[in-house]
């Protein structure tokens, strides 16, 4: 097809694989991108295809194995794809994807129930030390961004937690609301709904977030700790570089469209554009870090 160059691409509808269910955060975000897609890509429609399952692995595998002609792109989540490629049941590796752009950076926070006397991160650390590893911290699944964040946090803060894994952020939030667990590691996007019910102790991003200007970063409090979930778009490896270039340019335009940014704020997802090259660099860095962490805690050990 368009082997030679990116000229004229796209000349037919482009398929977009979403690795989560319709109506999920990834889908909602991609729907916003869809609104502006036609404007920057020759007026061709974007056809959604949902391949949910296995924490995104089914869909990501589908993206990695798609025909690399540029007419199948996929929404990817980091660190999901990186951690899944590191697991013993991996069905793709991290180099199976060529990243087009990062669109969302959803930082993680430490959150407690306000009925709890804990007010600051220092209180939290003191309490955790007092409880000698019995402080319950809710995370989402294992071998996930939340799990990695918890393990990293244990090292950085020098305490031990009792991890209580949940199936999703909704369950995790309910358990915290009901006071069944002491704290959670949650994402900004999921927490925004409960800012009045929860007490946010610290945010794991480099700078304070504009939506939560009163919540200090870990950096400010003296701990070098960042953790987040990022959403981006990718094509399978071996896609024509010219097409990749065309896609990267188009996404850059979409992501800087003021109307697009407005809508992203409305849906409560922290938009943060990164070019494909920078996103790839970030992924490589995270991959190395996670590999060390997994080896250290022997997460891949059988039995």
């Amino acid at each position, binding site marked *: 097809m368009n082997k030679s160059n990116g000229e004229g691409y796209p000349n037919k509808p482009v398929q977009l694989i979403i690795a989560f*269910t*319709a*109506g*999920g*955060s990834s*889908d*909602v975000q991609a*729907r916003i991108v869809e*609104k502006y897609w036609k404007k920057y890509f020759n007026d061709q429609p974007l056809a*959604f*295809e*949902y*391949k*949910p*399952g*296995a*924490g995104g*692995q*089914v869909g990501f*595998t589908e993206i990695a194995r798609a025909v690399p002609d540029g007419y199948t792109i996929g929404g990817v989540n980091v660190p999901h794809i990186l951690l899944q490629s590191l*697991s013993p*049941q991996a*069905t793709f590796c991290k180099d199976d994807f060529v990243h087009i752009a990062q669109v969302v950076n959803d930082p993680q926070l430490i959150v407690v129930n306000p009925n709890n006397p804990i007010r600051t991160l220092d209180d939290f650390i003191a309490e955790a030390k007092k409880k000698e590893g*019995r402080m*319950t911290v809710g995370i989402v*699944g*294992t*071998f*996930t961004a939340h799990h990695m964040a918890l393990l990293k946090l244990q090292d950085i803060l020098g305490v031990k937690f*009792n*991890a*209580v*894994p*949940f*199936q999703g952020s*909704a*369950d995790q*939030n*309910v*358990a915290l*609301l*009901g*006071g*069944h*667990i002491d704290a959670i590691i949650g994402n900004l996007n999921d927490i*925004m*709904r*409960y800012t*009045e*019910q929860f007490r946010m102790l610290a945010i794991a991003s480099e700078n304070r977030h504009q939506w939560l200007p009163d919540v200090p970063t870990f950096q400010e409090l003296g701990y070098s700790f960042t953790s987040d979930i990022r959403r981006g778009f990718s094509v399978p490896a071996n896609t024509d570089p010219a097409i990749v270039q065309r896609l990267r340019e188009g996404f850059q335009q979409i992501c800087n469209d003021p109307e697009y940014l407005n809508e992203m704020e*409305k*849906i*409560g997802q922290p938009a943060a554009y990164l070019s494909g090259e920078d996103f790839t660099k970030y992924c490589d860095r995270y991959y190395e870090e996670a590999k060390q962490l997994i080896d250290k805690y022997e997460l891949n050990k059988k039995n």
Partner: protein
Amino acid sequence: MGMDVFQPLLQGFATALTPQNLCFGFIGCVLGTLVGVLPGIGPTSAIAMLLPLTLILDPTPAIIMLSGIYYGAMYGGSTTAILVNIPGEISSAPTALDGYAMAKKGRAGPALAISAISSFVAGTLSLVGLTFFAPTLAQLALHFGPPEYFALMLLALSVVINLSGKSLIKGLISAVAGFFVAMVGMDPITGIARFTFGSVELMSGIDFVSVIIGLFAIAEVLSTWEAQVTPVIRTKLTGLMPTKEDLRETFPAMLRSTVIGFFLGLLPGCSPGVTAFIAYDTEKRFSRVPETFGQGQIAGVAAAEGANNATTSGGFVPLLSFGIPSGPALAVLLGGFMMYGLQPGPTLFEKNAPFVWALIASMYIGNVMLIILNLPLIGLWARLVKVPYPLLAPIILISSFIGAYSVRNKMMDVWLAIAFGLIGWLMRKLEIPSVPLILTTILAGMLETSIKQTLSMGDMGIYLLFTRPISLTICILALLLTISSLYGRYKKISLPGDDEEFSSESIEYPEVFEKKSPVLVKPRRYLHAPKAVYLVREHDRSRNVAKCGSLRMRQAGEQVQR
């Protein structure tokens, strides 16, 4: 609490009654009924398919329509369960138990009518609960942590004993097989793949939709090919509407199932499927004639259908109050909220009050629409059983396949459904009940998750289950229920003229019980005539006399009513 609700609710009605909103509400209800009727295609996929419409529509009509699909599906799900023994939704699986038995006796009409009426009563009553007590109730639901869910799952599992049919061992085998099915795929917490045989598709597990389509729809198609006769009842329909007596009998069942469905529905994770089973079991315990359950007891239909509708309204409480979806369909609906930037949660009631109240009002209106829509349809649906089977079979097959396919847009799920069809057929032949399997398949994930969380919270110990008042209470209740059902079984077996005598499969026995003293009328000799069906005037319980109609061979394909 209370009075200050009326003002916004009235405004909500004013909004919901505008032609545009009314129209979209109606479309939602019709679509809901339709996807409910079609086996396999559930409200979840229907809402997901229509979600892109939210890009065009205003928030209020769009969410009204999508919600209509959700509760409308609960009305439709019972239709095929009653008529052809294929539940349109998982939540209608218990409806099939008695509904289909009623249909076989020519009482499809009353069964359909009662399920619509029960849905309406339960749906509306629980909406009242949603209207007046949403914030309070949401707080109540928060008291349920992982140990409480664990206890609740144990309670739900105790239902298996009552669903086991003739042999307890076979019932339990079916239940454990449900766990086997649920274990395929990733462990719900650690994400480690189990029993996937290296397949990526199987990593996301076996979807309930394939299981239920296989065990019911495809197994049904296989079994009827075997018999080479029409499965659909040739009995004359005896009246389309329920009698006064039916209504009187089922009314308490509707109320009980409303309470059960609504309160369990407040808990995230308790899907309509779970609550319908629990309500069905409860009704059996309350009944003076528990033996008649499974043989066409109208109260069983009312209980199951009431509970699943009450659960749908109950589910809106955590959704609107905390933004917590209690099931996959509501999760997709939550996505719809997000598309509009409507952040559900306590602030929703303050910031977007007109929208919330219009939605709640639209649900009252929707329930009225649904019952107006469904009651006249009964005649039409009941006539569906007259469609010649050679034409009906392909329709069942096509909608089953599409339903299974739409789970993940993969043929894998269709193949799984076919495999379960074969398993379901074998189970029927071997007299292993399939209902416990479905129940445990629904429960397994939540059970495993809650055990793990309880253990994690209690530092590897299970003691939390017994040290927290709510979970301890539920545990004791579960234990009592288990003992009472086991005792009930023991008593039934030691009764003279036990089940075995009734098990000659080809004969269908109607109930010939005197209501006040449940003494079985022993079958007489002529009843052992092979392949014969004997009929009894059903409404005539007072006389305790079985009016035996003429005996006809089943192969003749026609039965004479009285």
